Every structure is written in C-alpha cells, then in structure tokens.
C-alpha cells in the first residue's frame, strides 16, 4: 500500500546495495594478472526494493540466508550506505546518522551485545541512561516497567557473565528499549533461545508495540515469531521482494496444495489413487492434493471409504515459504 511519504514511519524507495567482490581464478597466471588488474564481480545484495511502513505497524521480514534482510536493516539503521535509491526513517536519512535519528531507533542483533560483561545489568542500564541523556524519572519508570514485564527483578543485580543465554537476551532487549525508541529493528531476536524464552520475548515486543505505538521491523527464521507478531509480511529473496502483504494472503497466493488428513474406521486402505501420500501417522494418512480439486477429492473419499475423521488443512507455512523461494529462484533463472 502506498502512503504519502510523510506519513510513513519507514519509507523505502528503490533501495539497492551492490557489493563489488574481487574475483580471481585459481592458478599462478591468474594471480599475476590480478596484481595488475583487479577483476571484480558485482553482487546485488539488495536490488531496488520499495515499501512503506506505517507508524505502529509490526512487519515481518522473511527470507533465507543471504536474501538481503540484514543488509536492509543495516541500511535503515545507518550502518550501511546504499548504492541506489532512498530510505527515510521517521523523516531522517539514516546514513546521515544524526543524533536525533539515533535516539529514536534501536537495532537488536543476536550476537552483538552492549552490556558490560563483569557488571550487573543494572549498571549497564545506568550507562545507557547517560548515553541517551534520559531524564531520570522517565528512565527509572521505563526500566522498572520492562524488568517487571520480563520478570527479571532478582537477576538485574547479578553480573551479566553469570546469567544464562536466555536471561542475557532479556537484559539486552531491556537495554535496547530503555530510550523508548519509536522504531525497532530486530534481527533474529529469538535465535538460540528455548521455546519458553521465545514466547516471553515475543509477548514483550508485542506489549511494547501496544503500549508505545512503536514501529517494528523484524526478521526471523522462526515462523512462530512472524505468525505471533506480524500481520504483514515482506518476503525477500536474492535482494528482491517476492511478496508484500498479509500472512494469510501469502498462503493463499503461493500454495497450490492443501493437505487432507484421513482416518479410516477399519485399518488402512491404499489411498494413493486419491492423491500423493505424504504422511501416515497412527492411522491418520496425510494426502497432498491440488487446491482446486480439494472439494472433489474430499467428496470421493467420503463416498468410497468408511471415514472416521477427515480434515482439510493448509500446508505448513514453512513449506509455503520454501516454495516461494524456489519459485523466486526459478523466476530468476528464467529471467
């Protein structure tokens, strides 16, 4: 959807990032040649993408490794210069790295931490207060609020090195939000965490978004993250946007199949003639059938066999995404 530029929290227009990678073949002759003339190959990490995000939206950024997700986030947070196109976040040009801009955003990347290792998290929070020049009252209120939401009260006084990975991640997220940024860039925030912790972090982000109306751009490998938090999803592959819209629409558009789960009253029968058998678990057979024929096949099944239970499901989103990527790849090769 297109909004007037001024209304978007994040506005991206034909944004590109091309890397020039030195290329050299093996062998002595090539090595000598490369001394004289460097051959480089252009790699398009991000290829003229465009989208707008309204304030307060939570958008998921999906794509396989190397698709351009992290590169885009870095460009939007000012860590990377673009090669073409423009980006504006809250009206600022990120690459200028203006103080006002930096005070309103936050970028959380899985493995890079900003807390002091040997000191309690509380001390690191105080340092963050000083860096961002937060008024004492605002800072204390926000800090206490987050600590309560994430239930880390007794842990904030322990040195960070003594915390578990999940606890550390909670502290990092608190630290990242103390200055109450209006735009959150989250790069794989739940990676490496156990299921309970992932849920905690997700609900915290959702709550922050609810209370403060912050805009969230989130990349993740875990569909659960995206399903839980994002209504809108942008799928990126080979630096290009393959899909931008509702999550449900993604399934609709890209999946050509449905899965029929059949449980028979009496033992097993050979269902291969009805569709591709993709699974057989404890008497329930999963059949993959073309979407358009679902109704017809279901009717046949019900007529022909003694059915105890029959379900019709969409394929898991992971499969759909894989299919989208595969399709995108083949489109690339065709084009």
């Amino acid at each position: 959807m297109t909004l007037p530029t001024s209304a978007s929290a994040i506005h991206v227009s034909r944004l590109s990032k091309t890397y020039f990678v030195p290329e050299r073949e093996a062998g002595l002759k090539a090595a000598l040649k490369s001394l004289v003339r460097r051959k480089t190959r252009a790699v398009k990490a991000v290829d003229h993408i465009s989208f707008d995000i309204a304030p307060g939206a939570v958008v998921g950024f999906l794509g396989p490794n190397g698709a351009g997700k992290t590169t885009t986030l870095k460009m939007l947070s000012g860590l990377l210069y673009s090669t073409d196109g423009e980006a504006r976040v809250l009206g600022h040009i990120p690459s200028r790295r203006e103080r006002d801009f930096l005070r309103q955003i936050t970028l959380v990347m899985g493995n890079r931490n900003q807390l002091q290792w040997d000191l309690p998290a509380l001390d690191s929070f105080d340092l963050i207060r000083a860096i961002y020049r937060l008024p004492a009252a605002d800072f204390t209120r926000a800090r206490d609020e987050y600590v309560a939401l994430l239930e880390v009260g007794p842990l904030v006084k322990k040195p960070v090195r003594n915390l578990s990975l999940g606890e550390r991640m909670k502290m990092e997220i608190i630290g990242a939000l103390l200055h109450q940024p209006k735009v959150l860039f989250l790069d794989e925030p739940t990676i490496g965490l156990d299921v309970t912790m992932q849920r905690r972090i997700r609900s915290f982000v959702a709550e922050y978004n609810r209370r403060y109306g912050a805009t969230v751009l989130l990349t993740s490998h875990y569909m659960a993250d995206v399903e839980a938090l994002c209504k809108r999803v942008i799928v990126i592959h080979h630096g290009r946007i393959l899909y931008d819209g509702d999550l449900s629409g993604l399934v609709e558009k890209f999946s050509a199949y449905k899965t029929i789960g059949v449980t028979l009253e009496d033992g097993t029968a050979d269902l291969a003639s009805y569709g591709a058998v993709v699974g057989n678990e404890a008497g329930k057979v999963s059949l993959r059938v073309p979407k358009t024929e679902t109704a017809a096949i279901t009717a046949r099944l019900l007529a022909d066999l003694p059915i105890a239970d029959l379900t019709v499901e969409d394929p898991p989103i992971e499969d759909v995404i894989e299919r989208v990527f595969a399709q995108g790849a083949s489109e690339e090769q065709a084009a």
Partner: protein
Amino acid sequence: MSALLDYYWTNAKLSVIEQFQYPVANYFYMIGMIAEPVIYLVVWSTVARAQGGEVGGYTPGAFAAYYIVWTLVRNMNIVFTPYGWEWRIRTGQLSVSLLRPLHPLHSDISFFAGWKFVVIVLWLPLAAFLSLVFKPALNPTVLEIGVFFLAIWGAYLIRTMLLWLLGMLSFWTTRVSALFELYFALELLLSGRLVPLSLMPPWVQTLAGYLPFKWAFQFPIESLVGQLSPVELMAGLGMQVFWIAAGALVLQGVWRFAIRHYTAVGG
C-alpha cells in the same frame, strides 16, 4: 554539556568498579612493567658512576627519580591499543557503538580515565618500595606538583589521540602490525621513554621537539623531576594543549573518512 559530563562520570565510575574486581591482575601487570625502567635505571646509574658521578646532567639519584616517576607516567600513557581496532571491527562492536548518539572517543576516554584512578592508587605503594631501594633525588616545589598532576592527564589525552589515529588505519588494511611496530619504536626513542632526551644526540633532541611524543612522556616526568622554570612549565602545558587540540582535529577528519569507508563496505 552537563549531560556529557554525566556520561563521563558514569562510565568512569563503572570502569573503577570493574577494575577493583581485579586488583591482583593489575598489580602483576604493573610489576612486570617496572622491569623496563629498572633496567634502564641500573644501566645508566652504572654509566654515571663510571663517568665520575653524573652523565648528561643526571646523577644516579636523578636517574632514579626520573625512572620512578616514569612508571606512573607510563601507566597514564596506556590507552586503547591500536591492535584492538581490528577486533572492534571484526566482532561488530563498532556497529554497536555507531548506533549510539555518542562519539565512541568519549567512551574510550572516560573508560580509561576511570581505570587510571585505580592505577594511581595501586601505584603509590610500588613507588614507595622503589624509592626505598633506589633512593631518588626528588624535592619538587608546589608549582611543580600542580603542573605534574595536570601534565599526566595531558599526556593521557595526547596519547589517546595518537593511538586512535594509528588504530584507525585498521579500517583500510589488516596488515597494520608493521606500521604499529615502527611507530612504537620511534616513540620509544623520541619520547624520553628509553632515556631522558638530554642524553640523546643534539639532532635527535631537535627532532623530538617538533613531535608530540615527548609531551606525552618526557615533559610530565621533567615537570616533577627536572629543573624547569615556571615559564617553561606553563609553556609545556601549553604545548600539551596544542597537541591535544591538533590531534583531536586530525582525528575528527580521519574519523569521518573511516566511517564513510566502513559504512560503504559494511560490518
């Protein structure tokens, strides 16, 4: 401005807390470090005695004073190592710093400044011990003590600028160790760290006058140990201010280039 001072205070405080957790480590480091000046001290005292009591204007007692004060100034000189920049860039810590609305230089200066306080406290007993053993000839005036206290911080800031500039080379190449080693060797000879500059040939002394190294090392020592007139003391502080300002100016310029390069390539 007050917000910046608040940051300096907070960061320095954290640094002190952290360092006080490792007093033993700090002590061993300092003890290992005094081997160097003790060697110089012993050798030059031997030369002085062989030459009839003094050489280059320094008696064994004067050498003792020079090299004992040397240990404090050397500690004040220790700042973020230029080798650390490669680590900063490679691990992404630099990106974390760049996301903040604060120049990373402030972070380094305030962090090490806090550490210096711990170092000064730990140094005192060490200095007492060395004084007992080597009997330095030291009786400074009040003015000299005051200037000394300012000069050691001036030295700290000068060296911060210099080593930042050196470290920033890491943005453009990883083959920096050769340059670093050359720099440290030059600095060793021209700063008054190896010997008081008055013992160097005249042409070296002239050269050293044009470079910033001696203002980060020799001058603070001399302000306490030597016989500088009040005018010379003030002029020395002025030179320190000059080199800090010049260093900061060049640093800002190079920094912009460095960040431009970094954000073009990514990290």
